């Protein structure tokens, strides 16, 4: 006799559980079908395709310069990086050599965005861990960095600030002083995050040894970003000399964070993310003091790009973002290709989630910082 379906959940076959495409524990809209063995995910299947917006098609219809306005919609939480990768690819095609001030301003914008994106990710982890105070503290600091974006570009999340051959405007008056102040405050507040979460025994015990992204998994799926850098610290494009502008600041190689539990586990990645954020804050402080003077843009129309395929890679907060543009010599791209870090994460998700308890599923998912917007273009 069935008493409220008791035997269905305890004594019989594994349970099939489907969540999404919209669910609070999902980082982005997708459907997750999991097979549960007790409370443990034994296998998972990801169904995506719920937020296709035809961005690439829209981009193909824009002229080279106007396409930048659409790029902010690819990944709203770190849109500067989409603009940056695209501009770098086009500038490579045009053979432009940028002014030092342009490079400096671009690095500032990128690092402000990186900190904002990391704070957002960490706040979501804190929320999933049930630490409401840490969640609000992180969002409070993130607001300061969004204010900085607004101060320089007039927009908080989609600045549309980069231009082919430069940036839209010079930094506004008082911006650099404010930047120093906000970065200084963030470095002080990191102590609070450490007290509330990083070295909190309850938090460490909860996530240590869980959600491991091993170097095999990284290699198999081509995962970049925090999961890769937490294991192999010398994999940051910024310090490998492949990101223009970072030669303006002192080389800041990430120091290896010794894992408390297993290498590449959730706690290890969390600490590395915090470390990268503080590293960015120090970098910004240095750049605010020594931002090169001079013009911030190469004057010119740049309405036609020589024919050929041109690509550029940037180290975005989630990992390496590669953009490839194809030109036939006309005034707009004939095709664009977007290789975002979230693709690899989405691909690795079923393997990654195997062994997760449903109680920690939200934490495991949020720690990946997966943005479906940059996958479903």
């Amino acid at each position, binding site marked *: 006799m069935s008493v409220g379906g008791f035997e269905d959940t305890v004594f019989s076959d594994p349970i099939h559980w489907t969540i999404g495409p919209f669910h609070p524990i999902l980082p982005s809209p997708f459907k997750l079908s999991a097979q549960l063995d007790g409370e443990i995910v034994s296998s998972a299947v990801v169904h995506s395709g719920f937020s296709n917006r035809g961005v690439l098609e829209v981009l193909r219809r824009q002229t080279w310069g106007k396409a930048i306005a659409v790029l902010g919609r690819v990944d709203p939480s770190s849109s500067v990086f989409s603009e940056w990768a695209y501009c770098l690819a086009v500038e490579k095609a045009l053979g432009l050599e940028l002014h030092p001030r342009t490079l400096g301003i671009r690095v500032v914008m990128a690092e402000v965005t990186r900190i904002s994106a990391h704070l957002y990710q960490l706040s979501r982890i804190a929320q999933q861990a049930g630490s409401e*105070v840490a969640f609000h503290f992180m969002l409070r600091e993130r607001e300061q960095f969004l204010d900085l974006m607004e101060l320089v570009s007039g927009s908080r999340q989609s600045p549309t600030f980069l231009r082919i051959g430069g940036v839209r405007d010079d930094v506004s008056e008082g911006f650099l002083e404010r930047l120093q102040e906000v970065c200084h405050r963030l470095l002080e507040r990191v102590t609070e995050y450490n007290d509330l979460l990083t070295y909190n025994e309850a938090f460490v015990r909860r996530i240590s040894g869980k959600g491991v992204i091993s170097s095999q998994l990284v290699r198999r799926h081509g995962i970049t970003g925090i999961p890769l850098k937490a294991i192999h610290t010398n994999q940051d494009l910024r310090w490998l000399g492949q990101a223009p502008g970072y030669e303006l600041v002192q080389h800041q190689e990430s120091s290896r964070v010794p894992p408390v539990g297993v290498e590449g586990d959730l706690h290890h990645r969390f600490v590395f993310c915090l470390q990268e954020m503080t590293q960015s804050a120090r970098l910004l402080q240095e750049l605010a003091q020594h931002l090169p003077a001079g013009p911030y843009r190469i004057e010119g129309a740049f309405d036609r790009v020589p024919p050929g395929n041109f690509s550029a890679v940037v180290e975005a907060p989630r990992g390496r973002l590669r953009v490839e543009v194809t030109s036939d010599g006309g005034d707009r791209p004939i095709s664009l290709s977007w290789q975002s870090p979230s693709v690899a994460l989405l691909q690795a998700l079923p393997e990654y989630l195997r062994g997760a308890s449903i109680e920690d*599923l939200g934490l495991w998912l949020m720690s990946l910082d997966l943005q479906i917007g940059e996958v479903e273009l």
Partner: protein
Amino acid sequence: MITGSNWWEQLQSQGVTLLATLFLAIYLASWADMKVGADLQARVGPNRAGRAGILQPLANFLRTLLKVGPISKVRKGGASHLWWVHGLPLFMMAAVVPVSSGGPLLQAPLAIFTPLALGLLFSWSGLLMAWRLECVETRFWAIRQAALSLAAIPPALLSVVVAGLEAGGFEWAKIGQSQEFLPSGWILFSSPWAFIAGLIFFLCGALLFSMSPFSGAPLVGHSALSANSGKIGVREVWISAGRRLAPICWNLMALEVFMGGSHLPAGLLAAAHGLPILETAFRILLLLLKLQCIDIGIVLVSRTLPVVRVEQSYDFAWRVLSPAAVLCLMAQRLVMR
């Protein structure tokens, strides 16, 4: 004790007083929860409904009532609903018995264990209701609730035994008589064992009613039991009401057992001039004050600490609380000998 021909009137007046205490405590606790929680998170918190948002719990209650509909609608929930609907008032009644100056259970032997049993019943009635929702999240929640309550009741029971041994009996009257107004006269501070037992009792309440940081995964509260999800929303109101009421009832018990209850100082008793109404009002105010202090402490802890996994909660209960309670009991017996 309620005696004499007018026992029914006495019981009615006491019942009204007790329920007024409880609801006032719940009201203030809700407000403090919102205000202190907001302050911790660098927010202003409720500030629209009344001065400093003091009317916000009332506004929330009215909003919920309007959203969910009349109470008659709740009865459509099925048989498991009845457990919940009746479990809560039963537990509330049992919890407020010791506050009364007289009551049928006040001098009954082993009466201090009654609220524990009803607390367990109440906790399991939530389990049954969650089970009936027939979705994966709620069923897991129900299983966890069962396991948590099983893990929390033994140490709670043992800690009450420690208090009873300290007081010299397991009747509410004995517990009340053995304590005074000042903290030095509380069972909590009578011995190190009693102090640890008191802490264990508070922690067991948090475990039994799934309070943060022992609340487990946020899966259930967020999705399946959302207030916007039709008929499930009605049950969610009961579950959230229970989760608000039950810890306060538990804390009220803890106050009576370990923290001097509503014992007034001699000066205040003299100020009451033998007027029962004034004396009752003083007692209620004292209880509310103590409850608020405890509640603020709970808010500070629960809002700051991350939520632990449910098996960590079991581990904590079985491996830490239960052995600690047994040790307290043994130490108490040794001291008494």
